């Protein structure tokens, strides 16, 4: 992006809300959600619903709070020093931000993949076995079976079946990212948060991971952050555009992918999509 829409379009951002279609009931509802790091506002007053079973892309410039938004959904923000979350957030009837929420159960239902592949410093097998055993989802006798099925699901089985006991760091970046995906999928979550899952990968690995994400449509609710607008357009059903306004991120526009990309209602969205394309 070379131009700065701030100077081109001197309008105040207004959220353009497209009501959720009745055939796609919401699973995530955020109301006036804000995140701050100390005095610094990452994003402000986001009110949004995300539909169940669909792939939702989150786009916007660097620093507008996309990662911060994802870390609210699984309460990973709890781990970040000086991070505070305000507003209300409801996932499938669960009040996520309440102190009484069982974060362990929440994180089992809401999986997350990070921008940089981050397998555990253990063997490939143990990467998947650790969370499974920790949640007591299976025992030591059946765990190998689960590992194989999960690795098959992410298309990694053929590549690693002979070296399951090797360190996960022996894998290539793309394989590591698929292992991380397998680790998350092994818990059979309802929601998957993907934070720029392909940005550290070459085009071929990126394509593999992308196809994998598409194959999850319908069975999982996927929220994907991506800087690759073409990718967002290819795979997403819905899209949301965040923009940095007055030092804090804001949700500018959201709706079905087609309308956001082809007929954006807000001038900032139009400028961003065109700027990024040109």
């Amino acid at each position, binding site marked *: 992006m070379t131009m700065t829409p701030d100077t081109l379009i001197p309008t105040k951002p207004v959220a353009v809300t497209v009501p959720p279609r009745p055939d796609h009931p919401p699973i995530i509802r955020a109301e006036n959600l804000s995140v701050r790091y100390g005095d610094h506002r990452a994003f402000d007053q986001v009110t949004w619903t995300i539909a169940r079973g669909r792939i939702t892309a989150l786009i916007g410039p660097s620093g507008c709070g996309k990662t911060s938004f994802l870390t609210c959904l699984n309460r990973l923000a709890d781990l970040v020093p000086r991070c505070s979350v305000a507003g209300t957030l409801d996932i499938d009837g669960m009040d996520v931000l309440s102190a009484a929420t069982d974060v362990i159960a929440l994180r089992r239902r809401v999986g997350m993949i990070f921008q940089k592949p981050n397998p555990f410093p253990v063997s490939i097998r143990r990467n998947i076995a*650790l969370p499974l055993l920790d949640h007591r989802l299976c025992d030591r006798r059946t765990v190998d079976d689960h590992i194989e099925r999960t690795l098959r699901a992410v298309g990694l089985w053929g590549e690693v079946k002979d070296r399951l006991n090797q360190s996960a760091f022996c894998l290539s970046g793309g394989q590591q990212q698929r292992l991380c995906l397998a680790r998350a999928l092994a818990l059979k979550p309802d929601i998957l948060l993907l934070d720029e899952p392909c940005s550290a990968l070459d085009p071929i690995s990126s394509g593999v991971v992308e196809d994998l994400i598409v194959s999850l449509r319908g069975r999982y609710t996927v929220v994907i952050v991506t800087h690759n607008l073409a990718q967002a357009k290819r795979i997403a059903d819905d899209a949301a555009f965040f923009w940095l306004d007055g030092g804090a991120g804001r949700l500018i526009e959201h709706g079905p992918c087609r309308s956001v990309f082809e007929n954006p209602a807000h001038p900032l969205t139009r400028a961003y999509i065109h700027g990024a394309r040109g």
Partner: protein
Amino acid sequence: MHDQAISWHAAWPAPRLSARRNPDRFIAITAWLGAIAVTTVFFWIVVDLIRLGGAQLTPAFITNAPTSAGRAGGIGSVLVSTALILGVCLAVSAPLGIATAILLAEFTREGNRYCTAIRRSLDTLAGVPSIVFGLFGYAFFCVYLRMGFSILSGGLTLACMVLPILTRTAEQGLRSVPDEYRYAAAAVGMTRTQTLRQLLLPAAMPGLVAGVVLGVGRALAETAALLYTSGYADRMPSSLADSGRSLSIHIYDLAMNVPGGEPNAYATALVLVGLLIAINATAVWLGERWTHRKLSTA
């Protein structure tokens, strides 16, 4: 503006390639000289000890009790006392130190006042001369808690002394584990206890081992803190309540108070250095094995 842009794009003068100016070479040579100097000093000490005390060092010297104030006989009882003192010291300081390190590194937020206070006091304590610990140990363990001159008093005093360095090294070890592991583990809903047990402690093992080895090293080398707490009786201890003489005190006594005790002092010093090396190697080996077992098998 435009001119500036052009002049900025003008090339820098071509680099002059000369080995003499190669700054990496300078650093490399300095580093090698430093390394050689350090190893030379170490070998010098060992060679000196072998030359002066090697002749005395027989299997009998290791097992026999000292006679004639240590001039003759061996160091059997002294070795047993040393092991007991060290055992008491580690049994108390290692769990306590590692637990404190876990609290400081994992369960409190950065900038927590209470933790900053703990860290400051630990760092201050690490710099306190050992004779001060000796005085404290004498007043608190020997007199106030009525343990008298005993292996228990000595071990506990040493535990106080090595606790700061052990804790801080272990904390550094835990802090050096990348945050990505913590985020990754939290994201799959692992509890903090499991994350710590399965991932963080194994990954931090080199740091924890370093902490314990540094602690053991300080404890083995200690004389001043033990003189007034464990005492210097050289007979075989029958319980932890007995007074016992450590290797370093034996060396001190032979060298300073016993005419004709030097050969045995050197031999004892040789044993002490050998023990330090052996403990160091064992700790590293154990740590690596544990890390390996925890981190690679399913």
